[in-house]
C-alpha cells in the first residue's frame, strides 16, 4: 500500500530507546523524552505519568481519547482517557495470547462505527504478538496465526475508517531471537511505523532512503520520540514540554514532497519547544555548541530548505547531547553507599575473623545496647543536620536510615575498640585469616573475581571464568589429595575431586548466551524433549547418589530413606511431570496428537506445581522442624551398650534433609535444563563436602569461596545472565494464572536466585558434614556463623567492587548494558544471601539441628 499509494501511506522503521520494556516505551511514545534506566523495574506497577504528555495535552485541549487494550495505559493515563470509551484488559499474563486482542477487536469496530463522533483519538493496544514472542518465540506457528489476525484487523480498520482520520500502526519494541525484549540489541529496538490516511497527504524523500536491499538494513529509520511532535502538530495540540523528537518529514512535506514551508513551520515550532525545554536545565542550557546552532537558525530563516536542514541538524545534535547527559548521578549518595558497604565489610572482618569467637559471644549483649544507644544519637544528629543544612540529595527518611546504619556500625565498633587496639587487630589478620596455601588461593580468586568488574569483556564472560576457577580448585584438590597420609583417603579425595571437575565441566555446557558473547557462544539452554526426559532420569539418579553419600557415612538410617528415596524422588518426579505438561502446552501439535486439551494440561501443571512447592517449602519444613534424625540405635545385650549408627555424620545428614526440602522447591520453579543443573549442584556440593572433610579445609576461606563460586556457576547454568532481558518472567506464571502477591514473586525469586539460596543454605554443611556431635554445640554455631560471614564478605567484596567500577565507568558506552545490570544483580544477590544466611541458615536450620541432637541425646 505504501508503494502503490505513496501519498496515502508511509512505512518507516521505528527505533526505540532502550530499555525496550512496554511501560518505558509508552512513556517515550507519549512524552517524547528519554527513559531513565531504573524505570524498567517499575514495568509492573506503573503509576500515573506526571510529565507532560500527548494524552494529557489532548485532554486539556478538550479532545476525547477512546482506548481499548493493555491496561498499562489505564494506569498511566487513567484520568485523561474518555471514560465512556475505555476498555482496559489485564496485560501481564504473558501466557494469554487471545483475550486482550479479542477485547480490542470487539470494541474497536463498534467504537469506529457507532460512536464515531464521540472520540477524537482512538487507541487500540494489541498484546498478542508480544505475548506470543515471550511464550513461543518468533519462529513458532502461533506467531504466524497472530500476525495474520492482526493483518486482517488492520485491513478492516483501513476499509472502515473515514477520510479525515489518520491511522498510525506501530510496535513499541521489537523482539530478539528468543522472542523476549527489554535490552538494546538491534532486534529489540527495531519495529515499524505505518501511517495511513485516505486523503492524500504524505510525501516522500529521495528514493535512496527507502532502500529495501539487505533486508532493509539501510531503510529510513526514525526515532520513536519523533512520533510525539508529529502527532501533536497533526492534531493541532501543543508539543509536550519534555519532547526531544523531531517531526517526521514525510508527514509534513505534502503529497508531492515539496511543501517546504509547512515542514519549516513544523520544525520551527519543534525547535522552539526543544530550546525552551533545554533552558530549564542548567546543564543543557550551558552547552554553547547547541546554543550556537540555535542562534544560527534564526539568521537563516529565509530559505526554507536550508532552514529545515539546519533545524534537523540542531535537533539531532541536541538529542545526542541529551542522550549523553541524560543519566544524572547523585555523587553524595553514591559515595555514602560505597562508604557504608565498606564500613560493613570492615565490621564483618573484625567481628568474624579477628576477634576470638568466645569474646564475640560475651560481647553480643553489649553490642546490642551500645548500638541501640548510638542509633538514637546518630538519627538525631543526622536529622538535625538535615534540618539545618537541607542538603538536596538527602531527604529525611534517607537521613534517618543512614543514622540507623551508622549507629549500628559504631555501636558494634565501640565495645571492640574499648578492648582492642587497631595494631592488635591488624596483627590478627596474619594470624587468623591466613591459614595455608589454600587461603592464598582463595584470596587470589576473590581478588580476581572483584577485578573482573574492571572490564566489560570479563563481565560478559563471567560464566566461563567462574567454571575455570572451579576447575582450578578441583585440580588443586586432586593433587593435594595425593599428599594425604592414609591410602584410602588419598583415593577418595582424588576420586571426589575428579568427579567435582567433571561435573563442573559438564554443567558449564548448559549456557544461555548473552547477546554480547556473539558467535563464540551457542545457547544450549532450551526446553527440549531431552531436557524434560533428563528431569525424569535425574529424579531416579539424584536420590540414589544422595543415598550413596549417606550410606558412606552410615547415616542412611532413621528418616533418611523416607526423605530421600520417597519424598525427594516423589517431588522430583512430580516436577518432571509438571514440566512435561508445560512442554506439551508449548507444542500444540504434539498435544493435539496425544489428544490432551490445553485446559487439562494447564490445570494439571498448576496443581502439581502448587502441590510440590507447598509440600517442599511448607509441609516438609514443618515435618523437618519436628525432628528427623538420620541415626539408628542398635541395642546390644552383652555387654549392655547401645550403638548409635550414623553418629559420625549426625548433624550433617539431618541438615542435608533440610537442604533437600529447599532444593525440591527450587527445582519445581526451574526450567528443565535448570533442573538438571541444580541436580548437578547437589551432587557437586556433596563431593565438595567430602573433599573439604578429607583435606581438612572446613574453616578455610577456600571452601567458602568455592561454595560462592558454585552459586555463580549455577546462576549461569540455570539459564540466567546478568542482564535484565534474561530474567525468566514466564516463571511468574508457574504457580498462578494471574499475578498474585506471594506465589508469583516466590516463583520468580526461586527461579532467579535459586542457586544462591541453595549455596547459602549449604554453606553450613561445610562445618556440619561428617562431624560427630560435640558436648558444646555452641562451637558449631560459631563455626557455621564464621563460614556464613565469610560467604557474605565474599559477596560484599564483589558488590563494593561493582559499585566502584560502575561509578567509575558511568560514562562508558557499555554502562547500562553491562556494568549497571551486573551491579544491580550483585546488590540483589547480597540481599538474598543476607536474608537466607541470617534467617534461614543461622537463624533457623542450624540451631534446630544442634538442639535436636542435644534434646535427644544430651550431648
Amino acid at each position, binding site marked *: 500500500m505504501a508503494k502503490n499509494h505513496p501519498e496515502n501511506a508511509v512505512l518507516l522503521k521505528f527505533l526505540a530507546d532502550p530499555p525496550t520494556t512496554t511501560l518505558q516505551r509508552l512513556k517515550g511514545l507519549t512524552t517524547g523524552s528519554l527513559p531513565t534506566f531504573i524505570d524498567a523495574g517499575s514495568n509492573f506497577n506503573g503509576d500515573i505519568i506526571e510529565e507532560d504528555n500527548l494524552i494529557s495535552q489532548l485532554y486539556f485541549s478538550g479532545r476525547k481519547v477512546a482506548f481499548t487494550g493493555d491496561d498499562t495505559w489505564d494506569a498511566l493515563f487513567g484520568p485523561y482517557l474518555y471514560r465512556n470509551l475505555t476498555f482496559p484488559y489485564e496485560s501481564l499474563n504473558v501466557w494469554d495470547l487471545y483475550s486482550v486482542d479479542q477485547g480490542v477487536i470487539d470494541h474497536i469496530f463498534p467504537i469506529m462505527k457507532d460512536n464515531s463522533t464521540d472520540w477524537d483519538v482512538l487507541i487500540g493496544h494489541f498484546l498478542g504478538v508480544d505475548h506470543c514472542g515471550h511464550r513461543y518465540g518468533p519462529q513458532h506457528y502461533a506467531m504466524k496465526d497472530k500476525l495474520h489476525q492482526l493483518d486482517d484487523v488492520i485491513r478492516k480498520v483501513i476499509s472502515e475508517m473515514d477520510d479525515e482520520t489518520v491511522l498510525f500502526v506501530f510496535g513499541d519494541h521489537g523482539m530478539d531471537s528468543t522472542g523476549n525484549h527489554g535490552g538494546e540489541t538491534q532486534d529489540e529496538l527495531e519495529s515499524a511505523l505505518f501511517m495511513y490516511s485516505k486523503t492524500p497527504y504524505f510525501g516522500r524523500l529521495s528514493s535512496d532512503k527507502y532502500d529495501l536491499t539487505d533486508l532493509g538494513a539501510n531503510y529510513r529509520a526514525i526515532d520513536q520520540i519523533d512520533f510525539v511532535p508529529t502527532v501533536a502538530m497533526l492534531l493541532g495540540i501543543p508539543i509536550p514540554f519534555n519532547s526531544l523528537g523531531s517531526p517526521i518529514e514525510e508527514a509534513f512535506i505534502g503529497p508531492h514532497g515539496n511543501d517546504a514551508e509547512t515542514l519549516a513551520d513544523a520544525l520551527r515550532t519543534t525547535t522552539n519547544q526543544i530550546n525552551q525545554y533545554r533552558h530549564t536545565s542548567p546543564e543543557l542550557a550551558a552547552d554553547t555548541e547547541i546554543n550556537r546552532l540555535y542562534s544560527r537558525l534564526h539568521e537563516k530563516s529565509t530559505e526554507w530548505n536550508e532552514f529545515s536542514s539546519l533545524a534537523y541538524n540542531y535537533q539531532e545534535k541536541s538529542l545526542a547531547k541529551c542522550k549523553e547527559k541524560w543519566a544524572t548521578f547523585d555523587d553524595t549518595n553514591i559515595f555514602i553507599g560505597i562508604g557504608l558497604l565498606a564500613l560493613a565489610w570492615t565490621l564483618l572482618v573484625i567481628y568474624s575473623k579477628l576477634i576470638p569467637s568466645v569474646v564475640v559471644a560475651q560481647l553480643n549483649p553489649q553490642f546490642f545496647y551500645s548500638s541501640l544507644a548510638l542509633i538514637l544519637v546518630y538519627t538525631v544528629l543526622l536529622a538535625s543536620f538535615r534540618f539545618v543544612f537541607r542538603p538536596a540529595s538527602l531527604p529525611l527518611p534517607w537521613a534517618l536510615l543512614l543514622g540507623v546504619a551508622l549507629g549500628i556500625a559504631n555501636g558494634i565498633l565501640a565495645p571492640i575498640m574499648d578492648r582492642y587496639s587497631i595494631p592488635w587487630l591488624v596483627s590478627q589478620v596474619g*594470624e587468623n585469616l591466613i591459614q*595455608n596455601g589454600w587461603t592464598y588461593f582463595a584470596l587470589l580468586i576473590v581478588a580476581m573475581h572483584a577485578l573482573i568488574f574492571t*572490564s*566489560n*569483556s*570479563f563481565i*560478559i*564472560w563471567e560464566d*566461563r*571464568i567462574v*567454571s*575455570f576457577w572451579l*576447575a*582450578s580448585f*578441583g*585440580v588443586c584438590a586432586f*593433587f593435594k589429595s*595425593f*599428599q*594425604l*597420609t592414609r591410602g*584410602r583417603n588419598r583415593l*577418595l579425595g582424588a*576420586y571426589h575431586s575428579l568427579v567435582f*571437575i*567433571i561435573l563442573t*565441566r559438564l554443567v*558449564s*555446557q548448559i549456557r544461555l548466551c548473552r547477546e554480547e558473547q556473539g558467535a563464540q557462544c551457542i545457547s544450549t539452554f532450551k526446553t527440549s524433549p531431552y531436557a524434560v526426559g533428563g528431569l525424569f532420569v535425574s529424579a531416579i539418579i539424584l536420590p540414589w*547418589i544422595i543415598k*550413596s553419600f549417606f*550410606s*558412606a*557415612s*552410615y547415616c542412611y538410617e532413621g528418616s533418611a530413606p523416607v526423605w530421600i528415596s520417597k519424598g525427594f524422588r516423589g517431588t522430583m518426579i512430580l516436577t518432571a511431570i509438571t514440566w512435561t505438561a508445560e512442554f506439551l502446552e508449548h507444542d500444540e501439535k504434539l498435544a493435539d496428537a496425544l489428544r490432551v486439551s490445553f485446559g487439562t494440561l494447564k490445570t494439571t501443571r498448576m496443581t502439581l506445581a502448587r502441590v510440590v512447592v507447598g509440600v517442599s517449602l511448607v509441609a516438609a519444613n514443618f515435618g523437618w522442624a519436628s525432628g528427623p534424625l538420620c541415626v539408628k540405635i542398635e541395642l546390644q545385650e552383652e555387654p*549392655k*551398650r*547401645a*550403638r*548409635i*549408627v*550414623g*553418629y*559420625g555424620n549426625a548433624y550433617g545428614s539431618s541438615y542435608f534433609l533440610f537442604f533437600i526440602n529447599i532444593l525440591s522447591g527450587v527445582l519445581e520453579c526451574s526450567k528443565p535444563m535448570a533442573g538438571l543443573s541444580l541436580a548437578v549442584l547437589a551432587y557437586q556440593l556433596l563431593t565438595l563436602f567430602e573433599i573439604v*572433610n578429607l*583435606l*581438612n579445609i*572446613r*574453616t578455610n576461606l577456600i571452601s567458602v569461596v568455592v561454595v560462592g563460586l558454585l552459586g555463580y556457576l549455577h546462576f549461569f547454568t540455570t539459564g540466567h545472565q546478568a542482564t535484565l532481558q534474561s530474567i525468566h518472567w514466564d516463571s511468574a506464571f508457574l504457580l498462578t494464572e494471574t499475578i498474585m502477591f506471594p506465589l508469583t514473586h516466590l516463583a520468580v525469586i526461586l527461579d532467579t536466585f535459586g542457586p544462591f539460596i541453595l549455596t547459602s543454605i549449604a554453606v553450613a554443611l561445610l562445618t556440619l558434614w*561428617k562431624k*560427630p556431635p*560435640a*558436648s*558444646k554445640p*555452641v*562451637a558449631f554455631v560459631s*563455626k557455621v556463623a564464621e563460614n556464613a560471614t565469610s560467604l557474605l564478605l565474599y559477596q560484599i567484596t564483589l558488590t563494593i567492587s561493582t559499585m566502584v567500577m560502575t561509578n567509575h565507568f558511568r560514562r562508558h558506552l557499555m554502562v547500562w548494558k553491562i556494568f549497571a545490570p551486573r551491579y544491580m544483580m550483585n546488590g540483589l544477590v547480597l540481599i538474598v544471601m543476607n536474608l537466607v544466611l541470617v534467617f534461614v541458615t543461622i537463624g533457623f536450620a542450624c540451631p534446630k539441628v544442634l538442639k535436636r541432637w542435644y534434646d535427644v*541425646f*544430651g*550431648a
Partner: protein
Amino acid sequence: MKKAKKVSFSKERKEYQPGQPSEVVTDIPSDSSDKPIEDLWESPGRNITDSPKPSIFTPNGSFVLIPLHLLVILYLEFTYFNIQSNVDGALLKGLYLLASCQFIYGILVTVNTNRSRKVSKKNKKAKVSSSFNSGDLLGLIFALVLSILSSIPLFITFILFGAPIGSYTLRTFLLALHTGLITVLPMLCTYRLSDSDFKVDWANILTFQVDKFYKNQIYSMAIGGMIGCWLGVIPIPLDWDRPWQAWPITLLGGMYLGGVVGNAVGWLGGKLPASSEQVSE
C-alpha cells in the same frame, strides 16, 4: 559402581578415626566427656599434610640450561610461521621445530643430570657416566615418545578446564603436544626411567611434593610453564579484537614465557647461598 565399592571398603574399617569417624560406639547414657571445644577443630595453621616433604634429587643448576631457544621459537611462531593468521599450520610447524630443539635440549639436560648425579653419588661410588652414551640416547628417545604420549592427559586437562569441545580440537591437541614437550620431556631427562627410584620420584613430582622447588631448575620450568598456561587465558575474553587473542595463542605464549621464567627462577634459586636457605626454612 565405583561408589558402591567405596562404601563396602569403608565398612571393613570400623575403628574410630579422630576427625572423620564413620561410626562410634557410645554407652547409655551417652558419654559426657568434657573435651575442650578447641579439640574438635584443627588449629588454623595446622595442615594435615605437614609431613616433611620427601627429598628428591635436585640436579645442579646451569646457565646453559635456561631454555632461550623457547624464546626464539615463540618469536618465530609469530613472525616466520605467522601464527596469527594460520593458527593450526603455525602450531604444527612450530611443533616440529620445538621437538628438534627440545631433543637437543634433552641431551644438555641429560649430560647435566649425569654430571650432578656423579657429584651427588660420589660417596656411594655408584657408576655413573658424566657423558652422553648410547643408553642415554635410548632414554632420550623414550622420553620423547613418553612426552608425546603425555599430551593425551594434558589434552583432557585442557578440556576439563574449559577448552572448547567439538571445535578447535586439533589446536587444543597441538597445544597439549607443545606443553608435553616443554614440561614433561626435560623432566623425563632428569628423572629417568632407568633410575632405580624412578617410581618414587615421579609419584612425588606428579603430586607436587618437591622440596625446594625454587632450586630445581627443570622442575620449576615445568611448573612455570603450567602457571604461564593458566595465566594465558586472561587476555582471551578481552574485546580488543586482536588476532593473537585467538585460541590457543595466549596459552601457548604464556606457557613458553612461563617455562623460561620458571627455569630462570630455578637457576637463580640454585645460586642462593645456603644461609638464606635456612632463613627460608
